[in-house]
């Protein structure tokens, strides 16, 4: 084996450039593979682990305590499907509670209180992050996700119910199941007019919605049919969390797969090139007494060596990038505190990539290496330069008679001399162009999505109102006065006001985010995916997320808690983003908002009005109005675009390296021809022209094939991303192409080819010729 080792080491040394290209290509694709696998794993792995560790509830159910007793609920839960339960606990809902003490956290308008005697229950086990559990009347433990940061117990912090009952905050805990806004003792909950009971279940089979439905049915069998008033499942929490990574997974996967294919192509090309140019070397090895197996081994070791190094470095880079991406993907998502600590690239990814990539490289080297193995020694030693096969000669004859300058027509003939190499190079360029196209399409769609969400086309200025609790004294104008003020300013076309609040929907214990709007919403409302905008009372539009999570349709009625109690609302439309539910019922809902007034205003300006000047004018009238030009693009868009551009640049480099490698192989094989051409008077520039032409044609073909493929991939990826993130994306997101762009993209193949060819072409033009001409 040591002879093989020595021969391969010599081969690596002789082919430093190609070894380097191989290493870089493998490095880039390993990094992409690690980052992609890491992200894919982060979508499912950490959540399930963390959720099990916290004994999170698979289903949180709410029962009407006038229809079923605690004893009945416990008895019914005694089903084989049920693994563990906690409860039932008395549950009360506070409408518009308030807080005392400075820097309050801001309570939702609708606040669920659960009477629970202990934190360490078998389901929804709570860990206190500060303080102690509520043990007596007038005490409350708040549910605070740990990503908010460490909480401190202060003597003056109290929650005040609408009836004026004061509850002192004695502790903070985080519930993975999102089972309550706060916890009190069971007696205290009953004293606050508890009308329902909360029961939490873990099931033996909790893998799907259907399993959860079946489990719930089994655990509530025998109870009056209308006793169960609402359920929420952990799959909703998980789906919500997965939305972050799901934004990236589809295109990372596609980029990753493309990267792998390109690597395989390039590795195959490098090795066949090495075998072809190494015919004599092979002959010498065989003459020296290397067995066919040893010859194959020499070539496999030769490529595996840079592959292993590239793969190791790529894994390190991939984990760093992947870890960052994972954190980025989960950032700011409800429940992300559960997974953030665990959401690194999982360890199993490394051995898989570290072994998988070199094996893949060795496999793609196997076919050409087998050719080296079969080659008879005598043929190998006497092999000349380019062989006469296929259409090469005929094409050359045609080209020789054409009107093209001779260097160009000679260059055009090169691809036909080595059809296999040409096919591999062409595929590399096709994939490169495809990537560029796809990346441009994704970026354009993402930008358009941002415009859609921010409504930059119809809202030019947004005005945020200072919150007096944080930035006293707040605006001096009331909402009506702000409306009047804005309408009186020159340049105002339409104005609307918005405020956000949290409430509950009958039949679900999950918190619902509601946006309430007033003013010229008929003109300023966001684009609808389905249905129409609100036209009458008790109508709402819902977000795509809500649409899919609750599986509703147009015309359905949902019941929302308002300050007047439950209100039936008809769903008349679906919008892409925004709040779960949007309503125009200002007076019923605004009391539930933390500030009890508008939080922001949106303004459409008349044509020709300078938004910058307008914003400044607004700010002058009232320092509590923070006016800004509406051109903000989301950070997520920036992240996606930067991720996509990074991957694209990587793939362009890789496919440029593919071309580079081919040109290096071609010019090495033809160095005698090049020397002769120079000796009969070919100028350096003509040499460059010839060499660049030899791949520019490939580049052109690659562009023409690759651009449509990229457009196709874009059409597949964008809806995939939409589904992964639970959004219904309007078709307009796909219509980002125009002819000049597509033409330019088709041309990008030639650019990749010329980039990859230029250096070796210049090298060939500069190479001294005296030496090569006198040796056979």
């Amino acid at each position: 084996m040591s002879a093989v080792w020595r021969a391969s080491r010599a081969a690596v040394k002789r082919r430093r450039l190609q070894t380097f290209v191989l290493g870089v290509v493998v490095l880039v694709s390993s990094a992409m593979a690690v980052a992609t696998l890491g992200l894919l794993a982060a979508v499912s792995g950490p959540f399930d682990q963390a959720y099990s560790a916290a004994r999170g509830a698979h289903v949180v159910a709410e029962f009407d305590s006038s229809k079923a007793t605690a004893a009945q609920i416990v008895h019914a839960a005694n089903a084989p499907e049920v693994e563990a339960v906690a409860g039932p606990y008395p549950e009360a809902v506070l409408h518009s509670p308030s807080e005392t003490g400075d820097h309050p956290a801001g309570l939702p308008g609708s606040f669920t209180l659960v009477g629970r005697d202990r934190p360490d229950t078998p389901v929804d086990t709570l860990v206190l992050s500060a303080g102690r559990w509520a043990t007596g009347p007038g005490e409350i433990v708040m549910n605070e996700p740990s990503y908010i940061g460490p909480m401190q117990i202060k003597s003056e912090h109290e929650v005040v119910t609408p009836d004026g009952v004061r509850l002192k905050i004695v502790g903070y805990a985080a519930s993975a199941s999102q089972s309550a806004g706060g916890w009190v003792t069971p007696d205290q909950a009953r004293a606050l007019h508890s009308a329902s009971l909360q029961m939490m279940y873990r099931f033996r089979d909790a893998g799907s919605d259907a399993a959860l439905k079946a489990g719930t049915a089994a655990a509530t069998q025998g109870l009056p049919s209308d006793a169960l008033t609402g359920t929420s499942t952990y799959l909703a929490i998980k789906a919500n969390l997965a939305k972050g990574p799901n934004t990236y997974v589809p295109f990372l996967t596609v980029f990753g797969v493309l990267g792998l294919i390109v690597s395989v192509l390039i590795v195959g090309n490098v090795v066949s090139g090495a075998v072809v140019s190494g015919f004599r070397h092979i002959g010498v090895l065989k003459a020296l007494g290397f067995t066919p197996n040893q010859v194959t081994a020499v070539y496999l070791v030769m490529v595996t060596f840079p592959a292993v190094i590239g793969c190791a470095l790529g894994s390190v880079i991939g984990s760093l990038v992947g870890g960052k991406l994972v954190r980025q993907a989960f950032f700011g998502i409800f429940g992300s505190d559960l997974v953030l600590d665990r959401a690194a690239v999982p360890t199993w990814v490394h051995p898989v990539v570290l072994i998988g990539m070199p094996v893949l490289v060795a496999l793609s080297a196997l076919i050409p290496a087998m050719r080296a193995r079969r080659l008879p020694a005598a043929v190998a030693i006497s092999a000349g330069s380019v062989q006469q096969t296929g259409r090469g000669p005929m094409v050359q004859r045609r080209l020789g008679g054409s009107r093209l300058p001779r260097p160009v027509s000679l260059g055009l003939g090169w691809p036909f001399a080595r059809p296999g190499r040409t096919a591999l190079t062409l595929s590399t360029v096709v994939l490169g162009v495809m990537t560029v196209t796809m990346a441009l399409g994704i970026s354009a769609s993402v930008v358009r999505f941002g415009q859609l969400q921010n409504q930059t086309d119809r809202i030019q200025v947004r005005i945020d109102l200072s919150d007096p609790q944080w930035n006293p004294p707040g605006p001096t104008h009331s909402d009506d006065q702000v409306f009047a003020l804005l309408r009186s300013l020159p340049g105002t076309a339409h104005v609307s006001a918005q405020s956000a609040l949290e409430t509950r929907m009958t039949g679900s214990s999950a918190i619902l985010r509601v946006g309430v709007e007033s003013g010229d919403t008929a003109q300023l409302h966001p684009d609808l995916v389905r249905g129409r905008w609100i036209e009458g009372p008790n109508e709402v539009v819902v977000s795509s997320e809500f649409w899919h999570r609750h599986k509703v349709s147009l015309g359905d009625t949902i019941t929302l808690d308002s300050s007047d109690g439950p209100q039936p609302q008809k769903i008349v439309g679906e919008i892409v983003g925004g709040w779960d539910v949007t309503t125009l019922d200002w007076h019923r809902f605004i009391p539930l908002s933390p500030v009890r007034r508008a939080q922001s205003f949106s303004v459409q300006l008349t044509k020709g009005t300078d938004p910058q000047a307008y914003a400044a004018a607004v700010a002058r009238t009232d320092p509590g109005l923070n006016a800004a030009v509406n051109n903000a693009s989301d950070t997520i868009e920036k992240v996606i675009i930067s991720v996509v551009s990074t991957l694209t640049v990587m793939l362009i480099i890789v496919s440029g390296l593919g071309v580079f490698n081919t040109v290096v192989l071609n010019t090495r094989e033809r160095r005698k021809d090049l020397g002769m051409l120079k000796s009969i008077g070919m100028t350096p520039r003509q040499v460059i022209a010839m060499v660049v032409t030899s791949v520019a044609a490939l580049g052109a073909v690659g562009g023409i094939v690759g651009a449509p493929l990229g457009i196709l991939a874009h059409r597949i990826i964008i809806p995939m991303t939409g589904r992964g993130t639970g959004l219904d994306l309007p078709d307009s997101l796909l219509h980002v192409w125009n002819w000049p762009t597509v033409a330019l993209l088709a041309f990008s193949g030639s650019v990749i080819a010329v980039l990859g060819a230029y250096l070796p072409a210049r090298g060939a033009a500069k190479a001294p010729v005296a030496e090569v001409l006198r040796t056979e």
Partner: protein
Amino acid sequence: MTNTDGYEEHDIVVQLTDVRKDFGDYAALDGVSLEIGAGESVAVMGPSGSGKSTLLNMVSGLDRPTSGSVLVGGEDLVGLSEKGLALFRRRRIGMIFQFFNLLDDLPALDNIALAGQLVGQKASTARKRASELMGELGIADRKDIHPASLSGGERQRVATARALMNRPALLLADEPTGALDSRSGDQVMQLLMDLNGLGQTLLIVTHDPRLAAQCARRVVEVADGRIARDRSVNHAVATKAAR
């Protein structure tokens, strides 16, 4: 100075003055001065490694001297750029190599026409002239044959035709018979002599004294990078002596 055939030396094609060429510490050419007049036929002889090819590369501009001056056809090669050298080679010289250096993927005719196309001739013009040259060199029936299927002698004729495409002022040949059997070698040499008879200036490198004597009217002997001897030979006598 007059050469043996009485040509006046007013047309000097090659003028090397004190040319040195170092490869690292090694002096491949160590102060060589040489003049070749129009219509001359000069053989450069010497043992292997003595600097013959290096000398030829100075004349063809394929390599540059470390010091000294090289004038060919009145042009100072030392002052020319790479492009200038390429244009010079195109117009002024034709080269023949030991190993032919033909393009394997072109048929014989196109290999020859190539040299014409490089100076901007139309394909049809170049092919027509190439075809004429092939007739003159006795390989008219090999036009569509690829180099791989030609004999060594035929390949060298194709290479010679290519070198003649642009009517060079100077024909350079480095061991043109080195890869040929003696019969083909003699034929190629005869061909070169015939060309010289038509007025073509020749500079031929060979280490075979028999061939040198057979075709050249002047023999320059090189040893250790210097010109050891420069003599004119009586052609008829030398040819007889060699036989």
